[in-house]
């Protein structure tokens, strides 16, 4: 092996002691074992890249022909009739339902999740912290199909009268107008989604809150701040990027949640009129695809669903990227 020269990555420069957490490639040798093992590790990483690339490529390749034959506007039409001689399909309804339900979920889950994280890190008595954190983590372990069942069979009958009450008193407000849908509504799906993503918000927020430097906290307390003032002046500002990225990851999860939503949505009749009401029904991207899995009969039809899946992919990708960027920026600050 010849000497490595001219490594430009300035960020890799070690301290003069030579302490550096990463191992350089020079630690490995030209031995067969090293070549095989290092090769296998590299290959695995490359496989991951290839898989992700293929996912994008296959979805695009199969969506494009269907989109070319589409006689409706893909982004602005509410029609979904991908079969037949003259396929016509648009995703507006799914986009609205998906985004609206996820937004409701965020509005509910983020404040509660942050509250729970603050409770677990700042307020709970020490003996309760471990068990309580485990309890919240358990929520994350429950399979989403179970949330779906519970929402469908147990929670919906309890929720329905509440929704009727809201419609009676606040129905004049466009977002809360009655629509006559008897099954699960956007708002209801939002509530169930909020329960599902709560552990994500809590887990990540808890992590960053727990990392608040003791010096900051003690600094505030030494000035005579109450516990809440200490949290407001040191814990919350320190944890804000963490909370934002937690919310984004949770949003990504909510957007793509499939089975629970599939159990709960009420499909809209063809040609039903447009309403802004959150008490309307409607399919999300994921539920539409899942509900029609049996219909993937011809490439054109399948392509329409794949095109819808592609939009969902892009949507979650954007949301997750925002989360990553926020996390990275925070890392840059703390390191």
């Amino acid at each position, binding site marked *: *092996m*010849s*000497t*490595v*020269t*001219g*490594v*430009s*990555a*300035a960020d*890799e*420069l*070690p301290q*003069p*002691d*030579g302490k*550096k957490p*990463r*191992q*350089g*490639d*020079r*630690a490995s*040798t*030209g*031995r067969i074992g090293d070549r095989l093992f290092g090769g296998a590790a590299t290959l695995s990483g490359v496989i991951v890249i290839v898989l992700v690339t293929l996912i994008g490529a296959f979805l695009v390749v199969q969506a494009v022909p269907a989109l070319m034959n589409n006689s409706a506007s893909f982004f602005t039409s509410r029609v979904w009739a991908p079969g037949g001689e003259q396929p016509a399909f648009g995703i507006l309804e799914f986009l609205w339902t998906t985004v609206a339900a996820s937004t409701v979920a965020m509005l509910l889950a983020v404040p509660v999740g942050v509250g729970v994280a603050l409770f677990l890190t700042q307020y709970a008595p020490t003996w309760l912290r471990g068990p309580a954190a485990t309890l919240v983590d358990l929520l994350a372990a429950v399979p989403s199909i179970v949330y779906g069942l519970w929402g469908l069979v147990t929670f919906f009958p309890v929720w329905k009268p509440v929704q009727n009450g809201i419609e009676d008193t606040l129905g004049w407000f466009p977002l809360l107008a009655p629509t006559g849908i008897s099954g699960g509504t956007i708002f209801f799906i939002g509530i169930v989604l909020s329960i599902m993503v709560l552990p994500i918000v809590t887990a990540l927020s808890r992590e960053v809150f727990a990392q608040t430097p003791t010096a900051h906290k003690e600094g505030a307390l030494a000035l005579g701040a109450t516990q809440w003032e200490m949290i407001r002046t040191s814990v919350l500002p320190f944890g804000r990027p963490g909370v934002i990225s937690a919310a984004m990851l949770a949003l990504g999860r909510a957007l793509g949640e499939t089975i629970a939503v599939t159990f709960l949505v009420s499909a809209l009749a063809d040609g039903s009129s447009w309403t802004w009401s959150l008490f309307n029904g409607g399919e999300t991207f994921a539920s539409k695809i899942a509900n029609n899995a049996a219909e993937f009969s011809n490439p054109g039809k399948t392509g329409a669903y794949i095109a819808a899946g592609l939009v969902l992919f892009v949507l979650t990708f954007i949301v997750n990227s925002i989360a990553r960027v926020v996390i990275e920026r925070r890392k840059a600050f703390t390191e």
Partner: protein
Amino acid sequence: MAKRIDVSDLNVYYGSFKAVEGVSMTVEPRSVTAFIGPSGCGKSTFLRTLNRMHEVVPGGRVEGKVMLDDQDLYASSMDPVTVRRTVGMVFQRPNPFPTMSIYDNVAAGLRLNGVKNKKTLDGIVEQSLQGANLWTEVKDRLSKPGAGLSGGQQQRLCIARAIAVQPQVLLMDEPCSALDPISTLAIEDLVNELKNDFTIVIVTHNMQQAARVSDRTAFFNLKATGEPGRLVEIDDTTRIFNNPAEQATEDYISGRFG
């Protein structure tokens, strides 16, 4: 089994950063050579070039020559793994493998290199632990985790582990800096015994320690802040401490700086 090290005109780089410049020295076999100098003067960095450990850090490389008797350590045909088997190393903080017992720790170097014979291993483990003055303390609990020992015992365990692969040279990078005075004394006694069999190079911040254990002492310093470290002088320890050739050495020894 001890060999002489000849270094000529060695520069050490990390990436484009020159850490050590122009070191030439000879390390005599069966003796203890101490490296002293202020923090960041490159003495540890230089030490790591003697068994090519600097190469595990990205961008680490050298210019110049290091000869172990008649072997060129940096010859293109030379495998760094072989170099490290010949030139052992003991680190600043004791670092026994946490998942291994005392026995397994000492046997690790041999086992990981494919020695399986139980009898051979038993013999070498006992011999190495005795060589590290640890045998009587641990012989009844060889199967216990090495991490359960005290800091000083752990460091002697690491020395046993290092000598178990029967190296020619033993490099010690501030081996006592994490230890209490009594454990330090035990290590220093051990160094005195080990020099009968090995060429020993020890980096230390403690000048008394250098005076106590070493036959020869090398003083490293920075030319100026931001400049690479360099060897100021190397000589018999008594001479360095009583009558050094360089003013800088005198200043450092007498505590005027550093």
